């Protein structure tokens, strides 16, 4: 029976491929959507991850960057520098705002850097200056590619005009982008005097980041300190929560589509093989054995479809980067496990559809011409 299950399934490779491709389409839809969501969420924490500070210090009661404001008095910079294990402290100003560039509005994290600071600046430069000067801004290269914006052009940030001095890479997503200006310019815009938003703390070699964050909170009043990983995880989870319902809805739609497709394929398969099933029953094969065989076939189709969907999305990642740079596509292990489990559940559900048909096959029909 086991042999028949697989021989029969692979007997018509073109038909199998078409079936697998159809189901893979549904899984790819789910993976793609989750991938876009993961990519977008990943870009929201890009500044935290890519600047690689060991500890982030912020206003007490603040634990995020996304959709948050933080004010830390600038005198605390020296206080933190005095904490044991601190190698360097880099302050930034931060504003979540809209920039007007190339005739369009773009949601952006505006990061104000100290003059000449490269520590918190762009981690990958596409063209132009790496550090903004007074009245200058460094924008994501995707905006330039999308609008034709060039170095020397003017953009408006929080109501004030800036000259484009350079373009950074890996700083754009559809939901968010990162723009760098000087701290002085951003301070003027925000009317922020004597305070910064966040402090990037680098630890001395061998110092545990978690312990250092604890010492900073103990020794410097009214600040919160989080390791890079903690800070990044918090922001990432906020981003995920914001889109969770949409992701679940898409997963549900994709799953339902996959169940229907797999069910239809398996049902057609059973209908096409009705005579063989009648012969098997006549020879003494029990209904449950036939059903188990069909369930195995559905499972193989589901898992092959899942594999194909993963391959398609993996292929889509570099293609998206090349041809649709505005889309940030990422494939997380969580999404893979979730969709893989979904493929198994979908297959099991789909194999229920032809049960009635299997049970109704009359072995006596094996005698018919």
């Amino acid at each position: 029976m086991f042999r028949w299950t697989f021989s029969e399934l692979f007997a018509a490779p073109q038909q199998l491929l078409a079936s697998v491709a159809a189901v893979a389409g549904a899984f790819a839809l789910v993976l793609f959507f989750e991938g876009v969501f993961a990519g977008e969420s990943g870009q929201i924490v890009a500044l935290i991850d890519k600047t690689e500070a060991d500890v982030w210090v912020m206003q007490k009661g603040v634990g995020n960057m996304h959709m948050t404001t933080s004010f830390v008095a600038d005198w605390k910079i020296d206080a933190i520098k005095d904490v044991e294990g601190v190698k360097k402290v880099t302050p930034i100003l931060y504003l979540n705002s809209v920039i007007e560039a190339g005739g369009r509005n773009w949601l952006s994290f505006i990061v104000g850097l100290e003059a000449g600071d490269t520590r918190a600046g762009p981690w990958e430069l596409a063209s132009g200056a790496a550090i903004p000067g007074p009245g200058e801004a460094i924008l994501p290269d995707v905006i330039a590619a999308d609008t034709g914006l060039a170095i020397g052009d003017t953009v408006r940030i929080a109501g004030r005009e800036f000259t484009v001095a350079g373009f950074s890479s890996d700083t754009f997503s559809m939901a968010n982008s990162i723009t760098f200006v000087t701290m002085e310019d951003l301070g003027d815009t925000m009317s922020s005097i004597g305070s910064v938003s966040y402090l990037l703390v680098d630890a001395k070699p061998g110092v545990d980041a978690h312990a250092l964050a604890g010492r900073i909170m103990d020794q410097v009043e009214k600040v919160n300190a989080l390791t890079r990983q903690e800070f990044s995880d918090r922001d990432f989870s906020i981003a995920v929560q914001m889109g969770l319902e949409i992701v679940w809805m898409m997963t549900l739609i994709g799953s339902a589509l996959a169940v229907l497709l797999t069910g239809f394929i398996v049902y057609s398969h059973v209908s096409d093989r009705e005579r063989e099933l009648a012969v098997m029953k006549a020879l003494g094969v029990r209904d449950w054995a036939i059903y188990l065989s069909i369930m195995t076939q559905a499972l193989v189709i589901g898992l092959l479809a899942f594999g194909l969907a993963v391959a398609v999305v993996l292929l889509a990642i570099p293609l998206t980067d090349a041809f649709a740079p505005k889309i940030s596509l990422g494939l997380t292990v969580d999404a893979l496990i979730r969709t893989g489990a979904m493929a198994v559940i979908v297959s099991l559900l789909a194999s229920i559809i032809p049960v009635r048909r299997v049970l109704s096959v009359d072995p006596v029909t094996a005698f018919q011409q």
Partner: protein
Amino acid sequence: MTTPIVQASKVVKTFGAGRTLVRAVDGVSLEVNAGEMVTITGPSGSGKTTLVSMLGALLRPTQGAIVIDGIDIASLSEAGLSALRARTVGFVFQSFNLLESLTVRENILFPAHLAPGGMPAAAPHADDLLERLGLGKRSKALPRTLSGGEKQRVAIARALINKPKLIIADEPTGNLDSKSGQEVLMILHDIARDQGRAILLVTHDRRVEEVADRILWLEDGTLRDRKQESHDWTNDPVCNMRIDSWASLIFSDHEGVRYNFCSDKCRDRFTADPSKYLRETQLAEQSEERKP
């Protein structure tokens, strides 16, 4: 002493209910013994398939009893019937019914997974059957590449793999050319004679008369024994050909009388204008009577 492998006692099978009730098999009793080859013949719609379905444990009778290898099938559940079929009955079908995605050897071995020991235990037997039935060189071939005769030999080997006591063959020569048909009949005959298996054959093939131990005639759901040497001669009213009404399968009923024909063509001519041929028959009979 002969051992009955299958016994049917006053078996009735009805389908439908009330005004649509059909008695497909009506009070049939028979026994088929080990080593015996019994043929059931009869016109289309006479209930042959229903009868052999019951004798092969595929259907339960509405009334009466069927005992296969000492087991009354009425006492068995669906699972029990499946197990009995797998163990005791081998089937050979007119349209071969091989599993198209499996090779010849895999087809032969297929029912073995339902028997104790499974396929590994049956593998040597499968190889032996392949050789004995002249399929040794075709063991890895797929059914679609086989001739009709080869397909039927594979089907016979599949029916034999679990060494069943009863083999039911439904029109095993129906889709074969003359030579292959003869070959299949001889194989079945040898299986009954040499291996002591009971063979129940449903066929219209006249050549089976040469090899069958008994020929049973089923008509309107009832069975009658037909001696091989018995004949009931009559004449085709259209072409006047002499016909054995016991064996004739082409007939037409007119005003309560059954007329047998040599061919569909003669029957069609008759049914188009029965009075013409009956008048001619009558005139011919009168002319015969006037002869001195």
